[in-house]
């Protein structure tokens, strides 16, 4: 459920431009779930709506029934894990991921998706073959923003905000590296997943959300 004060407002130019309005647009818009137990959920919801999706907050397993793709937002990964363990949400998300539903994880969301988390005995969802190291830059004072050159992304550099961010130490088979920051892997994808160690949802630039929606549409077309 999105609270009213979190929604983009009707006067917002970006909303006027791309939010589906006609019955046909609404019928064609994919429904994207945002894991809504903790973190910057409303920022993702607003970006997805600007990019033309319908958005559902996912807090219980049944909320997954109607979604074509799932975003795992930024937040605290240990907190997200505790909340995913409540009422079987972790298993329900993992099952949908294994069935091929596209997922987009940012920061903590990328940690949840990794098959390996450095220093942790077991991973969380274990859906994207990669090793992630938590808090890789240090504490908040080491958080930063930087402009990234992204492989295959039109429209110039991407402004990326890294907050107590992880890094992707290694990627496995089928994972393509899309961007590095001072040598560290910070953005990667598979045919079903997009993972960023930074927060595209904190800026007004929706290009990665649009790239994710393209993956969701492609996956729906294959079915």
């Amino acid at each position: 459920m999105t609270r009213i004060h979190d929604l983009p407002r009707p006067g917002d130019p970006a909303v006027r431009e791309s939010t589906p309005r006609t019955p046909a647009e609404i019928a064609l818009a994919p429904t994207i779930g945002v894991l809504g137990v903790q973190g910057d959920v409303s920022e993702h919801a607003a970006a997805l709506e600007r990019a033309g999706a319908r958005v559902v907050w996912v807090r219980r397993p049944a909320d997954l029934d109607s979604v074509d793709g799932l975003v795992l937002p930024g937040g605290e990964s240990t907190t997200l894990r505790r909340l995913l363990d409540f009422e079987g949400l972790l298993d329900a998300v993992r099952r949908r991921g294994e069935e091929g539903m596209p997922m987009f994880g940012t920061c903590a969301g990328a940690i949840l998706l990794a098959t390996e988390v450095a220093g942790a005995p077991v991973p969380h969802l274990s859906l994207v073959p990669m090793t992630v190291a938590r808090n890789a830059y240090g504490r908040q004072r080491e958080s930063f923003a930087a402009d990234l050159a992204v492989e295959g992304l039109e429209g110039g550099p991407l402004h990326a905000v890294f907050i107590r961010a992880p890094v992707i130490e290694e990627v496995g088979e089928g994972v393509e590296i899309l961007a590095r920051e001072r040598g560290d892997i910070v953005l990667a994808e598979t045919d079903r997943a997009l993972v960023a160690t930074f927060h595209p949802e904190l800026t007004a630039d929706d290009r990665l959300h649009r790239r994710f929606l393209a993956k969701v549409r492609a996956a729906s077309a294959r079915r």
Partner: protein
Amino acid sequence: MAPEQTGRESGTPEVKRGLARMLKGGVIMDVVSADQARIAEEAGAVAVMALERVPADIRAAGGVARMAPVTRIKEIMAAVTIPVMAKCRIGHFVEARIEEALGVDYVDESEVLTPADETHHIDKNAFTVPFVCGARNLGEALRRIAEGASMIRTKGEPGTGNIVEAVRHMRLIQGQIRSLASMDEGEWFVAAKEHAAPLDLVVEVAETGRLPVVNFAAGGIATPADAALMMQLGADGVFVGSGVFKSEKPEAFARAIVLGTTHYDDPDILARVTEELGTEEAMKGLDRLAAEELMQTRST
């Protein structure tokens, strides 16, 4: 392979406000030891606040309340991987610099400690570490944001376990935002004067219908129902001070308050979470304080 980039910007408003956004929907718990910090992390807290004493004990102890001992803050930072916040006295920019040097993730310029300056708050724009500050109304929130606060919390009345002041402050701020958002542009100038707040921030709130930073609830939350109430009133998350470690069973209360905050609008889950606490008692609390005992009116 993608080309590499260099230039990094740190300590910008985007980076400082961003961390607070990652804490949304979560519970920040006051802790006074590494053991308590581990209990909080295990229960699902999004961050801990390192203190020498929880507010209820500060009230009981009397005397001057200062920042926590450095050894205590370092022990807590070493014990958990979630963000660690620490309080400094209002206006005490040297305590804040010490906490920044230690590497704490957020500094709380807090009325719970004894104020060091009754006129001036810290110039928080001058710091790399982000700050959270308390507010009882919109004007107070916007003055703190102008000084550089990257996160706001309603003050409530700390250490009482009584939600009434937190509700009063959250309802007032939300109501003042709604009122501003419905104003004619020509009325913004007088609104800025009446709120004693900078015009640019008043205009931003009027145009967006929200504060430019995250707003948590604090001061009196003692049960999962209290946390859910504050979330339904529009809080982005909650601070729990004495409510966890002054209860009969901290582990159970910590977990229940975390679940109550996440599932704040689901009465079935709230009923179950509350039932699981059984007959364990929440902190006893205070139902009334004399005006001179209030912390919320310290330096506004």
